[in-house]
């Protein structure tokens, strides 16, 4: 028995922070479906289990509703098993009723009720669909007593947080991690956690096929699951199906000379043009270094799909050369000295210190040779 385990597609999720490239990321999530289909065909898996959150919201547009179905329709040898999650719970006249009303492709099966469904003569699927965003009880409990054909591999599929596992899932939909043992499951396919994660011998989070945020998995994956028989262990193989890499880096700077190395490290990242980088900068830099940093970041921004820099932890320490670059004396130098004092004065609040530092940087940019306004 071989099938694909995936989850958390969240089709229709907006990416407004990417401006005019938002559609690229939205499209990437649909492309991920095709990659999963191709993976299934390549691996000879007849079934793809989608463990919840197919859609990002309960009320998507009609186009958003139909686009993933159309992508799945093309893979005629693959059966797609869709489970409602906390983003798209099954409620009367909700998103899944809309899907049904629009017509479900023959190779797509919706699991909207908790009842056994035979995948083939060897395996039975036990789905635990969410009917609301937050469930207080464990919806997989029914699997313990679910009747299946003798000798059939029992495969559970659910969406929620593993009790006691501390997965930090988005909703309070508890799942007992001992469910495979209690319900005699050969495998329990879970969704909700946006990171590929093995919880137990027969229980996995598939992660998302296309990440949507920094701090979760770097690149989208889907799992190929092999189960030789009813009592055989599940063999799970993660496969990359995502296009964009979501990276988070924290770099520490203490001198301008480190900028070059920083840029080199970042440029060494694979597939820059499809990388979304969240960069936390900490430490201190002189004014000139800070200006140079901005120039380097500008170049990196063009190289990456997206660069988001957090410089709140990066302090400005004007050097003597910085101040001389502003002027050796006179009005501007006097002003620079005042601003530096304000930025260093602990009597000022963080906001005032930050403002003074920003003003000093601005003065440096405007008055220094680099700023190009020196007469």
């Amino acid at each position, binding site marked *: 028995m071989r099938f694909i385990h995936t989850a958390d597609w969240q089709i*229709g*999720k*907006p*990416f*407004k*922070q990417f401006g005019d490239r938002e559609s690229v990321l939205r499209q990437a999530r649909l492309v991920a479906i095709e990659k999963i289909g191709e993976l299934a065909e390549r691996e000879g898996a007849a079934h793809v289990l989608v463990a919840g959150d197919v859609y*990002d*919201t*309960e*009320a*998507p*547009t*009609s186009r*958003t509703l139909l686009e993933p179905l159309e992508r799945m329709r093309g893979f005629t040898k693959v059966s797609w098993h869709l489970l409602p999650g906390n983003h798209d719970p099954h*409620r*009367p*006249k*909700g*998103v899944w009723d*809309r899907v049904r009303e629009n017509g479900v492709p023959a190779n797509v099966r919706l699991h909207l009720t908790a009842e056994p469904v035979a995948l083939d003569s060897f395996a039975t699927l036990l789905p635990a669909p969410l*009917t*609301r965003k937050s469930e207080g009880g464990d919806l997989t409990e029914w699997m313990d007593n679910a009747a299946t054909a003798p000798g059939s591999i029992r495969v559970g599929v659910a969406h929620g947080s593993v009790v006691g596992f501390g997965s930090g899932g988005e909703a309070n939909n508890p799942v007992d991690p001992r469910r495979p043992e209690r319900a005699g499951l050969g495998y329990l396919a879970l969704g909700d956690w946006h990171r590929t994660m093995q919880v137990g011998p027969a229980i996995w989070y598939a992660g998302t096929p296309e990440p949507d945020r920094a701090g979760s998995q770097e690149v989208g994956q889907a799992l190929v699951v092999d189960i030789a028989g009813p009592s055989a262990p599940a063999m799970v193989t993660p496969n990359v199906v995502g296009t964009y890499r979501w990276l988070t880096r924290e770099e520490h700077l203490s001198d301008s000379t480190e900028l070059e190395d920083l840029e080199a490290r970042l440029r060494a990242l694979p597939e820059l043009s499809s990388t979304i980088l969240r960069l936390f900068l900490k430490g201190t830099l002189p004014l000139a270094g800070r200006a140079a940093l901005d120039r380097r970041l500008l170049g990196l921004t063009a190289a990456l799909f997206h660069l988001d820099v957090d410089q709140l932890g990066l302090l400005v320490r004007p050097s003597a050369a910085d101040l001389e670059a502003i*002027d*050796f*004396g*006179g*009005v*501007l*130098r*006097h*002003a620079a000295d*005042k*601003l530096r004092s*304000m930025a260093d004065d602990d009597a000022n609040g963080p906001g005032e210190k*930050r*403002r*003074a530092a*920003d*003003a*000093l*940087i*601005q*003065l440096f940019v*405007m*008055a220094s040779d680099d700023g190009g*306004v*020196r*007469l």
Partner: protein
Amino acid sequence: MKITSIIVEGVGKFGTRSEITGLGSGVNILAAGNEAGKSTLFRAVRACLFERHNTKNEVVRNLATDGVSLPVTVTLGFEHGEQSYTITKSFMKSPAASLMRGTTELARGREADEMVWELLGIAPSSGRSVDEAAFGILWVEQGQSFHVPEPSEAATTALNTAIQAEVGTLVGGERARSVLSALKEELGQLITDTGRPKSGGPLAEATTRLDVLQGDLADAEARLSVLDGQLVELAAKRSERARLSDPALVKEMTTDLEAARQDLKAGEGVAALLSQFEAAEQRSKASFDRVERHLLDLHERRARIDGDRKRDAELREASTPLDAQEQAARVAIRVARGEIGALDAQAEEEEEQERNLQRLATAVARAAARESLARQQHGLEELEERLVRNAAGLANNHATTAVMTSLDNAERELSILTARLEAAAPEVAVELGANGAGYVSIGETTIVSNVVQAAIDPLTIRVGDIATIVVSPPKAPNKTDHKRRQELQKQLSNLIEDAGAGSAGALRATRARRQALEAEAVGIQAEISAVGITEKSPALAIERIKTEIEKVDALVAEILTQAKIDALPTAEDIAVRQDALRQNRENARRKRQTLDGTIEAQNTILSNLADTRGRLVGTLAEIQNRLDGDLTILPDADRARLIADANAAVAVARDDYCTKAAALEEQRHKAPPHEELERRRIRVDRLQNALESQKSRLGSLDKDTANLEGQIQSAGGDGLGEKVEALRQERDLTLREVERRKARVGALVLLKETIEACYKEQRDRLHAPLRRHLQPFLNDVFPAAELELGDGFAVAGIRRNGPTAETFERLSAGTQEQIAVLVRLAMGTMICERGQPVPIILDDALVFSDDDRIEQMFDALNRAGQKQQVIVLTCRTRAFAALGGRQLSIVSNVAKPTLA
């Protein structure tokens, strides 16, 4: 730069080619009257240097000569950097530009425009205007010399560049100003002067966008919340419907209902049988009660028959004495009525006597008034006679008030006329001699003494028969008066004649008599009124009195006849007889009252007897009726048998009732209690209601579900959830943008304020070079004075006689202008020393300067002229004669240079 020649054509009044001659180093003066074209030349020079040759802006259009179809052509010769240049520009028609150095053309067209700017250090602006740099400060057009120079960006740069050379390294003023300028420019796009986001700027735009997004998001979230609520509600309703329509539940409820109905039916059967036993017991009880009541009735009738018979006998005995009492009462009434009849007859007779006495009394009274009537008649007859006599006197007397008024008026007018005529008439004086008396007559009158008379009319004087002298008044004068006098005399004559008098005096005597008659008439009328008659005249009253006297006489005669007496009795006799009659009547009345009381008392007795008798009869009839009834049911003959039969029937009925009551009690023990039956009914009702409610609830749920489905369909199908997520992200992004821009504004404002604060601290050092260059010029005009300079080289005030500064705005217009010109001269000198010798041009300046002060200003101008070219344009030829320098002149119709 030094201007060496100016040639214009088609410019203002210079339609033909005209040239300014005499230009050179130092001070140059072009003194010419008003409308000589000085200012036009000034503007032409500016246009030649600063306007593009192909512009058609207002500056250039205003230069064109009216009515001449020529291009506006300006040629300017100048020296710069020890080289001679010539720039020629033709505007409007066939625009062209050419820059020559010596005899070599360096550039044409646009290139020539820009090469001149580059040569003179002027930065071409991206806009249409050109920053004139130092020229903006030093070329002062008409009317501008009063204003302290406000240097433009480039001009300030030029000044600061000059200052930098001296103190720039230490102060950095120009760099600070440049940074400030850039800061202000960016801040100006972000915020207003008051610190609020500038409309149209990026901060305001982001803030507005954020507001819109927050509004949209709130709206979308509200709609999504509603949708979520509807989904939850729909799920709950569907769940409830599934629960309610569960077949097992329905079957259970139906079974329960059927069982409850069976229980109720069984209970109700036993209860029905009990009802039959109760009915039988009730019927038996009724039968027993009936025969028992019959027996009791017979006993009651037996007792009543015996009692009624006894009572009948008693009543009949009591009615016997009533007949005698009735007879006595009727006799008494008859006697009383007879006495009343006698009294009535006596009263009727006395009433007749009283009426006769009354008629006699009336006749006596009327006879007594007859004497008075006769006296009144006599008095009236006398008054009537006097009245007739007086009326006849008045009828014959015509001296009425109107006649007398006419007489008086005519005599008064006549006397006036006569006096006037006499005044105008010749006066005739006759003096009689000693023997003349009676010998002379005037008119018909013989005079006996001297007479003086006016001859109004012809006057005939006869002197015996010796002579007749006629004195005639002149005819012409007073002709009208004479005529009027004659009319009046005629009128008087007619009046007197009509009144039947012989003269006016007689008429007046007649008038006196008429007045006496009128007074008499008034007196007679007063007496008639005093008599009190109601008639219009005494005659009518007399007739009435006569009639009354006749009536009295007839009445007395009639009374005497009726009374059969010869004479009327006295009034006292009549009164005595009337009193006697009244006494009789009173006695009769009292007796009548007594008799009426007797009749009334007897009638009361009769009434009471009738009542008593009636009651006895009624009671006897009632007793007899009851007795008859009772005997019909219980005849004396069958009394014992009937009572014995009734006693036997009661015994039988009592036995039957006891039997039925025992059977009922037994059945009651068998039947379920009433509460149990009620409970079974309630249970059946409850189960029926539960089933019906379930059906009703299912219907309601189906309806609600359909409604919710419709609402969800319409709300959820437009991608509301997706929209909310998108709006949240956009809101967060915009919020960050606003915060970022605010932080940027905060940093820029802080930087600007910090630099400005430092700049102010360094201002004195920055202004030192300008003050140093200004001081010699200031000493020329305001010895020992010192200027205070503010931001942007503004003049804040001047200290002349002491430590206290006078503010610039409080100085006189003339002094302000002089200081402004001196500041410009100092700026020019400072710039000149930095290698940018820009000519100073003053157009019509120093117009308010007095003779002493203008001389001092001339010294200052000449001091400036030592280092750079100064061109003064003025219409005040006499006042500026002492300026010195080169005298310029305008030469018209200059021939174009021929090509070599």
